[in-house]
């Protein structure tokens, strides 16, 4: 960054952050009553055979729906898993009947809970990349979306980490 006085740098930061936050919102997907937001995946170490995908699905409709499957052209397989912790032991299980998205409510896939288990990467990913996924719902059918590869949900908007 060129040398700027502090106020200048602050202003530049706020401008950049505002622009990037606006851009990040563009990844939200709206399909019928479903709105899918906060799509991200932490960068996996090299040679990592799996990665996790996180997202939030809001349902503004009068009927519940269910996320029953997912796929990605960049991975051999994608499953919906639930991670749970009991007595210091981590357990991970596929969610066989899928994940309920209640009418007027939402389903959250986030660290230490539900995640998309992305298995068998067909290419390497780094922060800033995007992972295309197809989410399959019981009623809404297939919806295309993209996960942002980034370090944490706190930096869900790239560039915001500087604050």
């Amino acid at each position: 960054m060129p040398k700027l006085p502090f106020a200048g740098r602050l202003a530049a930061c706020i401008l950049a952050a505002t622009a990037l936050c606006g851009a990040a919102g563009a990844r939200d997907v709206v399909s019928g009553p479903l709105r899918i937001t906060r799509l991200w995946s932490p960068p996996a170490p090299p040679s990592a055979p799996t990665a996790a995908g996180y997202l939030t699905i809001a349902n503004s409709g009068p009927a519940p729906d269910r996320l029953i499957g997912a796929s990605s052209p960049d991975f051999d397989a994608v499953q919906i898993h639930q991670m749970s912790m009991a007595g210091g032991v981590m357990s991970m299980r596929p969610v066989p009947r899928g994940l309920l998205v209640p009418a007027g409510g939402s389903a959250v896939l986030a660290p230490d809970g539900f995640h998309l288990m992305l298995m068998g990467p067909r290419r390497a990913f780094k922060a800033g990349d995007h992972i295309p996924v197809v989410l399959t719902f019981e009623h809404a059918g297939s919806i295309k979306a993209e996960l942002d590869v980034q370090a944490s949900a706190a930096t869900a908007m790239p560039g915001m980490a500087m604050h």
Partner: protein
Amino acid sequence: MRRPVVLLVAAALAAGLGFAAWRGLILPILATKSAPAAPAGHEIGGPFALIDQDGRAVTDKDLLGKPSVLFFGYTYCPDVCPTTLGDLTQWLKALGPDADRLNVRFITIDPQRDTPKQLKAYLSAFDPRIRGLTGSPQAVAQAAHAYNVYYSKVDLGSGTYSMDHSTTVYLMDAKGHFVEPIGYGEEPAMAIDSLKRLLHP
């Protein structure tokens, strides 16, 4: 004048005893609880014979002389393991060169898939002071048993599986005795304090 001094000494003694009791009695009980597969009263730590990410033989004896930080996991783990290794990387960075005096080891509980080569590639994303250990299924089972680590294979269908496992980070002193655990998701400041106590007992 005399009485307050006596009181102070008594208070200091009580605090010291309390801390010793916490370290010596309560913490091992907590740690044992976090590993349900272990028999009650089984001490944490013990003999193991594994190979490191460069294929060299490593035993528990090789870790003596320096305090050790041990974490059991596997590279197919999408969530807890990379998070913990990322946390460890941050803690070691915060400790700076002081952390050179620690053995930090990531011990796989999935030796079938975690070869030395796989561990080495995976760990290249984290602090280079974190080194990977693997071995035969029997050797890994022995190491996990020594540390009261629970693990279990979960079938995911179509030939794939994941592992349920203990997520505790074990802090061992330079003589190989268990000091205290760091639980998953611990606050960074608390974890760094634990590591400082391990380095400067």
